[in-house]
């Protein structure tokens, strides 16, 4: 039989082939026939074939059955009436592993942004200000310098869940994680020679608005990256092609895209990206800078449906701006009891970390939550814990101060439907 099939071209409509397909279908139907016949290495395809094209040979694309897409975030259209892209959220509900595909990586822009069309041959990075040796680099020169490759998340300060959000894309889609490659910013700053009074840097892009952020020197010298690579290829245009800054674990607006200029200065510069994020109180300012331990269950999550009682792997993402995730716990009873989840793979510093918990759903209404701890010993709080810490009145909506890292509750109804349970 093996031989016979090998002689026939694939797709033949011979009686033999139809017979084979029927048997294959029977096998796929659940092994209920009692006898198991070997398929001898042949599996019938379910549909047609994708014909090869030059385009697909050169740069592949996903299956037409995969429809996961980004959506505008925060109620403002993207693109808007001017053709500007505003905030765009990643579809975390369909994510697997920890890498966000470059095409699905969230995008944040301050006022809305055109994506500049930059020729890398023409692009330069200048470092100047309070340095001994101002320097200007071509992309080729940056690639000659010692490189690092690291997994890091970037998260927008606007990634704040509320009760009106339905899906995890709406509650948490303004975070993403990629493998970034580039030069340590400290390498460049040391090469230029930072003077004693240089206590801040101002990083600036080359897009139409020349978005700029002030960053403390302690952070700039610690772990910031000047990236030309993302997920194994060049940084995507929406992410700053050909060069972006990455400020691990700090609010996303500091990770300046289309990076062209770094000025070493002696004070906070209150520049373009800075004043929109000013806070009235110093606690809020601190809580807005470094992102706290945070996690969210991506399956099951809002608007998804469990087909019935039985086994499920609860799965989600955890991250912290304070370092590596040290522990993730999951509750299936609304936070009354917690079980330690498994960390899938390695927990990298300031990177999305996949966790999971094996679970048998008994079909009754329940509430799922996840809670992240990081290597600094900080623990993700519930909204009630935040209110209690700041002595907020219990009858008022909780005011989350700084970057929102509160626990996300998902309620599962007895019909299997999943809903945002923020009250």
């Amino acid at each position: 039989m093996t031989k016979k099939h090998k002689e026939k071209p694939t797709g033949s409509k011979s009686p033999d082939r139809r017979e084979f397909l029927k048997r294959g279908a029977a096998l796929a139907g659940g092994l209920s026939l009692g006898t198991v016949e070997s398929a001898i290495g042949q599996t019938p395809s379910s549909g047609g074939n994708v014909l090869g094209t030059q385009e697909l040979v050169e740069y592949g694309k996903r299956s037409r059955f995969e429809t996961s897409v980004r959506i505008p975030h925060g109620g403002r259209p993207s693109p808007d009436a001017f053709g500007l892209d505003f905030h765009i959220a990643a579809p975390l509900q369909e994510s697997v592993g920890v890498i966000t595909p470059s095409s699905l990586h969230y995008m944040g822009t301050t006022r809305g942004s055109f994506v500049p069309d930059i020729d890398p041959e023409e692009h330069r990075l200048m470092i100047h200000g309070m340095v001994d040796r101002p320097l200007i680099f071509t992309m080729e020169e940056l690639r000659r310098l010692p490189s690092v490759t690291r997994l890091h998340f970037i998260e927008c300060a606007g990634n704040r869940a509320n009760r009106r959000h339905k899906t995890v894309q709406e509650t948490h889609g303004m975070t993403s994680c990629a493998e970034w490659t580039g030069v340590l910013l400290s390498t460049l700053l040391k090469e230029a020679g930072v003077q004693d009074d240089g206590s801040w840097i101002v990083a600036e892009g080359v897009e139409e608005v020349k978005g700029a952020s002030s960053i403390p020197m302690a952070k700039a010298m610690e772990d910031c990256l000047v990236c030309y690579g993302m997920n194994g290829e060049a940084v995507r245009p929406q992410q700053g092609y050909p060069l972006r800054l990455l400020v691990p674990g700090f609010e996303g607006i500091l990770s300046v895209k289309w990076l062209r200029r770094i000025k070493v200065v002696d004070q906070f510069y209150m520049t373009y990206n800075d004043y929109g994020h000013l806070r009235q109180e110093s606690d809020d300012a601190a809580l807005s800078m470094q992102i706290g331990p945070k996690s969210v269950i991506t399956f099951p999550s809002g608007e998804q449906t469990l087909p019935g009682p039985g086994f499920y792997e609860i799965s989600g993402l955890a991250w912290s701006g304070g370092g590596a995730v040290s522990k993730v716990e999951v509750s299936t009873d609304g936070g009354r009891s917690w079980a330690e989840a498994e960390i899938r793979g390695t927990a990298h510093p300031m990177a999305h970390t996949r966790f999971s918990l094996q679970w048998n759903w008994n079909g009754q209404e329940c509430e799922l939550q996840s809670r992240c701890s990081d290597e600094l010993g900080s623990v993700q709080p519930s909204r009630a814990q935040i209110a209690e810490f700041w002595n907020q009145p219990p009858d008022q909506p909780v005011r989350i101060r700084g970057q929102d890292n509160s626990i996300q509750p998902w309620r599962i109804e007895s019909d299997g439907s999943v809903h945002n349970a923020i009250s």
Partner: protein
Amino acid sequence: MRYLKFLPLLMFLGISAQAQSPTYGVGRTPSTEEIRAWDISISPSGKELPSGSGTATEGEQLYLQKGCAGCHGITGTGGLAPRLLKRDTGPSASPWALGRILPIRAPYATAVWDYINRGMPLMAEGTLTPDEVYSITAYLLYLNEVIAEDKVLNAESLPKVEMPNRDTWAPLPDWWEPGMPRLLGYPY
């Protein structure tokens, strides 16, 4: 004589021993003109502000001529683009209630100048002269009742403008170091 061939190495080691010497020698030194052309940063002290000046009266004309009104509305409101008029909050309201516009909540008027200079007009950014930026800054600050109509703004006077939010904002934490939690004493 035989040590001469090591001279470059010795010189290299000698230089390396100094603090923060270049290690790789990659990249070139930009010219003063290049730095001046690229450096549009304006600090709160205004030390980088260019010479030039302007008033609200001149700014009102430019607001129409340069197309600002087309997007932001004739009176600074009612257009497709964000409004440029503070919310009417009464005389005693907190400057934080004025809205995220202009930026009226920025503590220093240099931020308003900087925003117009780097970001406006849309699609023609970077085309305004310093005089024009001073004038439009003056007009918008006058519209928002921050300065008088005849106030002349220049590199001297702009940083001294008393913005509503001058003293009611919190600086980023200066105590932060790598490996520290985001707020001391905060367990979350």
